[in-house]
């Protein structure tokens, strides 16, 4: 019996090593390929065998010295993601907090609306929103890209769930001390919600950093492209830009993976809150 479980343990653990290798292989192979000559990559794609002698830093030297556009995209993505995180956390947390801790008319209806937005596929709203952006001159602007993400329903939902677990007695105590309702939120309750802010910062940051379809519609000029849109323009069957594309792809995911290693707990909480295929 004992022997049997040891054997099972070995089998299961080896199985997970294999599964992990399959999960990590695509990213590892991309990183290794970023040191290969782009012409060779174009011809053979990603291969199992590595020709050590052909590996070089050429693609990275190229991207740092010859691809100013790439760095413009990087800057745009950084600005848009940072602003999205700050604004969406500010607004979504207030909404979630009020829905959890105040009694007011229409509260349940508004919560129902949150769920409805989560259910409605964005693609259905895309054309009217695109038209609206044209009419109000927000096409090709940062604001236009960020707008649909600012009051994020998943974030509102998450903040509400979190705020429900906060002690409402604290609010009454603060009121007796003469604190305003807004003071209660910013000075007392929001700091208590800090763990949920971390999780949502990661969810919103990732959503915005990786956002594809909406920026694809809204952004028209090359100098305003975000990283995914810019990199997608390099995805051609002719492979003439593979040096920038491969090294550039690696450099868009490395910062995220580093952040993940440091803030794993918040990543898990953030993504598990319902961003599947968002």
């Amino acid at each position, binding site marked *: 019996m004992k022997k049997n*479980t040891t054997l099972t*343990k070995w089998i*299961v*653990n080896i199985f*997970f090593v294999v*599964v*992990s290798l399959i*999960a*990590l292989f*695509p*990213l590892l192979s*991309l990183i290794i*390929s970023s040191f290969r000559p782009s012409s060779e990559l174009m011809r*053979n*794609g*990603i*291969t199992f*065998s590595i020709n050590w002698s052909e590996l070089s830093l050429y693609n990275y030297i190229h991207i740092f010295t010859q691809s100013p556009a790439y760095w413009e995209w990087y800057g745009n993505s950084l600005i848009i993601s940072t602003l999205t995180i700050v604004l969406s956390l500010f607004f979504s947390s*207030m*909404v979630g907090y*009020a829905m959890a801790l*105040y009694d007011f008319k229409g509260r349940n209806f*508004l919560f129902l*609306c949150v769920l409805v*937005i989560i259910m*409605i*596929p964005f*693609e*259905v*709203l*895309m*054309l*009217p*929103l695109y*038209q*609206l952006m044209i009419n109000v001159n927000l096409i090709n602007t940062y604001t236009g890209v960020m*707008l649909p993400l*600012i009051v994020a329903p998943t974030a*509102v939902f998450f903040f509400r769930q979190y705020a429900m677990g906060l002690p409402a007695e604290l609010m009454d105590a603060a*009121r007796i001390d003469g604190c*305003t*309702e807004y003071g209660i939120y910013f000075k007392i309750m929001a700091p208590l919600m800090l763990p949920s802010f971390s999780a949502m910062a990661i969810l919103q940051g990732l959503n915005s950093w*990786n956002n*594809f*379809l909406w920026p694809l519609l809204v952004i028209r000029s090359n100098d305003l492209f975000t990283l*995914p849109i810019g990199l*997608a323009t390099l995805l*051609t069957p002719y492979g003439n830009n593979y040096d920038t594309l491969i090294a550039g*792809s690696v450099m*868009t*995911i490395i910062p995220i*993976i580093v952040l*993940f290693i440091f803030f794993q707990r918040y*990543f*898990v909480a953030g*993504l*598990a809150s*319902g961003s*599947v*295929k968002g």
Partner: protein
Amino acid sequence: MAELKANNRNNTVPLGKEKKPNKVLGFLNSKKVVPYVFVLPFIVSFAVLTLYPTIQAIIMSFQRILPGQIEFIGLQNYQRILNPAFYKALTNSTVYMLLTVLILVTIPIILAILLDSKLVRFKTFFRSALFIPALTSIVVAGVIFRLVSGESEFAVLNQIIGFFGFEPISWQFNAWSGMLLMVFMASWRWMGVNVLYFLAGLQSIPKELYESAEMDGANMFHKFRHVTLPFLKPIIIFVTTISIIGGFRVFEESYVIWEGNSPGNIGLTLVGLLYQQGIQQNDMGFGAAIGVVLLLLIFIVSIIYLLLTGAFKRGDE
């Protein structure tokens, strides 16, 4: 409890009022008004970014929209939908949805149960390894999958099938292999997230239940069938529902492989058709009609699924 809280708060109102001589500030700070100030951003964004576009999408679907000239054309957009490209897109999206639901529900359950058992060491590492692909953007995933599915016999996928004695394949140019590429890409990216959902569900099962089942002489299979599955059911329903919705919404996987122009429309999806007609051809009325059909499709399929699984029934567990 809720009443008690409400009472407590009401008691404090006079105190707050005494301190506020300024009427405007007092009004803004009254407990009747404050919650609405807090939720105002949501009300505005719901009205402008969800309610308005939903209604507008339905209206647009009955219109022919040309620059500076809009006319109602009744059901013409919907009649035009019934064409081979639409059937192709519908089939592709549906097949994609079915395959991703199948893969992204069954495999994560198995992985999660194994990860939750005492058998596995380094749980955190394995969980992280599975989860990391979810961090990659669809474009980076597209770069990778285009390169592993290259036509050359040395490319990874051809090497793998070559190991089993098959000839190299042009993965991006066959209908079936193109579909597989999209499904692989989605499975790779979302497996770890679904494993997390199931792990969270498994951790809520009281361990005593397994112990008492063991005392009743239940084997592994019985425990899975009568303890694990019933407890996981709500999570399974949740994951399946979001996978159905996500499956019908497929677009980006196809876009990054073929840039929107797949040979013989092998990668055309419903959202792809919407994008092609509504944005690229600037035929917004027609695009909106495709959107409305997509919305109805998602609603109908999700509701049928939820009815079949009894998710609407209350108090049965």
